[in-house]
């Protein structure tokens, strides 16, 4: 079992972010995906077979491919209808602007952070432009694009990861619908039929719970590493409660997007203590964290808990979560409740029956 390690950079502290796993590889097209320059040829050049193979292998690992090509925008239609590329490229960007801007648009369209992008281009100029403007992007020349790089090889590929290409397509449809929607963002969310299903984790959920523990930063209370085998023990342990939340709407399935590792009545206290609480980035901006918290609080109260104790390790990334907790009645716990390790604080929230609810978000409870 791995020892506990802290992934988060402490709040206010400088330090390099560790390289994240890549979620999307953005390919240049001319002389990278296919030989030559497309608009200079009579017919669309055939993509290199080894590039298509690489795209498929990456997709199997949950890593999607996109494209950023400096070319005539009219080529976009040809790419969108290309028998071998249409299904392999999500949100391709074809135009004359800088590639760094294309990458930002892709990250925004897919709803991922810029540091989850890799960029492959044969042109040293383009690589230099992107590296200068977006230092978080993994920039590679075609011969550096190797599938055995650590950024492309997650230790475990969960079903959730494999479904990433599908989810990105669904997100594109969702955003297109929102753009056409004549109303506020909140009205759109209501109209999109969001449903949050909450219930206890099953053994099959363990890999995804471990993946969330590993990969969430913004909505993660401690950044503590919890190996899958330890999580599996907790799922089976009546002294712990491991809830999972799944989100869907009429455009598709966001998957398992929230979880927590909750100790019941720690140290004999009439309390529940989430040792870790996480929400995936893809589910934020929809009041999901608040809805999950409120539900956990109600379950805790039903189990006889009189307060919720939350371990929190402030980091460079989790300020929004800290604000969410503060805004929902969490304050410094009384020292008698426990003394967390250095760099971590213990927050407490009394359970008086006024737990937060998100009225417009449909909540479905799964039985224990």
């Amino acid at each position: 079992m791995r020892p506990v390690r802290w992934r988060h950079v402490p709040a206010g502290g400088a330090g390099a972010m560790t390289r994240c796993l890549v979620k999307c590889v953005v390919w240049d097209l001319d002389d990278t995906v296919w030989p030559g320059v497309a608009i200079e040829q009579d017919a669309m050049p055939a993509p290199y077979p080894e590039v298509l193979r690489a795209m498929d292998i990456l997709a199997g690992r949950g890593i999607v491919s996109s494209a950023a090509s400096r070319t005539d925008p009219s080529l976009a239609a040809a790419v969108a209808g290309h028998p071998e590329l249409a299904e392999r490229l999500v949100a391709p960007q074809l135009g004359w602007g800088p590639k760094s801007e294309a990458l930002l648009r892709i990250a925004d369209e897919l709803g991922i952070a810029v540091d989850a992008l890799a960029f492959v281009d044969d042109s040293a100029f383009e690589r230099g432009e992107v590296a200068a403007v977006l230092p978080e992007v993994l920039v590679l020349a075609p011969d550096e694009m190797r599938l055995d790089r650590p950024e492309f090889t997650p230790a475990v590929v969960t079903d959730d990861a494999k479904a990433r290409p599908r989810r990105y397509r669904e997100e594109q449809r969702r955003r297109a619908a929102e753009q056409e929607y004549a109303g506020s963002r909140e009205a759109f969310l209501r109209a999109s039929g969001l449903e949050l299903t909450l219930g206890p984790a099953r053994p099959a959920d363990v890999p995804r719970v471990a993946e969330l523990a590993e990969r969430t930063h913004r909505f993660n209370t401690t950044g503590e590493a919890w190996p899958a085998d330890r999580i599996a023990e907790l799922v089976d342990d009546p002294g712990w409660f491991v809830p999972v939340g799944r989100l869907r709407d009429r455009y598709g399935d966001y998957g398992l997007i929230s979880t927590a590792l909750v100790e019941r009545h720690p140290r004999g206290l009439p309390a529940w203590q989430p040792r870790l609480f996480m929400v995936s980035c893809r589910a934020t901006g929809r009041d999901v964290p608040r809805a999950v918290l409120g539900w956990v609080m109600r379950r805790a109260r039903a189990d006889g808990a009189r307060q919720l104790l939350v371990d929190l390790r402030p980091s460079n990334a989790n300020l929004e979560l800290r604000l969410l907790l503060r805004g929902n009645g969490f304050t410094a716990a009384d020292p008698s409740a426990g003394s967390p390790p250095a760099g971590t604080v213990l927050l407490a929230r009394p359970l008086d029956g006024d737990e937060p609810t998100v009225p417009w978000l449909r909540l479905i409870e799964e039985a224990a």
Partner: protein
Amino acid sequence: MSEVEAGIRELLAAALGRDPAEIAALPADTPLFNGPLGVGSLTGVRLLAGVKDRYGVDVVAEDLTLESLASIATLTRYVADRYVADRYR
């Protein structure tokens, strides 16, 4: 109203995209979260960035449990206690 309190109210208005006159008129014990101000996660990030920028007080890094964010008055007191005006440096 102290100079710091006036500044905090201005930063609040900016973070929330609200009329500064409206924010200036609220009682000092108005809670930041919930209530008429309704500071949230994103607006809170903006507010604290503004505080650090204007007063050099890093609430994010120094107030680990964000106790100072109870109300306009508590945030003002927290910042005022730590703000060293340029003229004193």
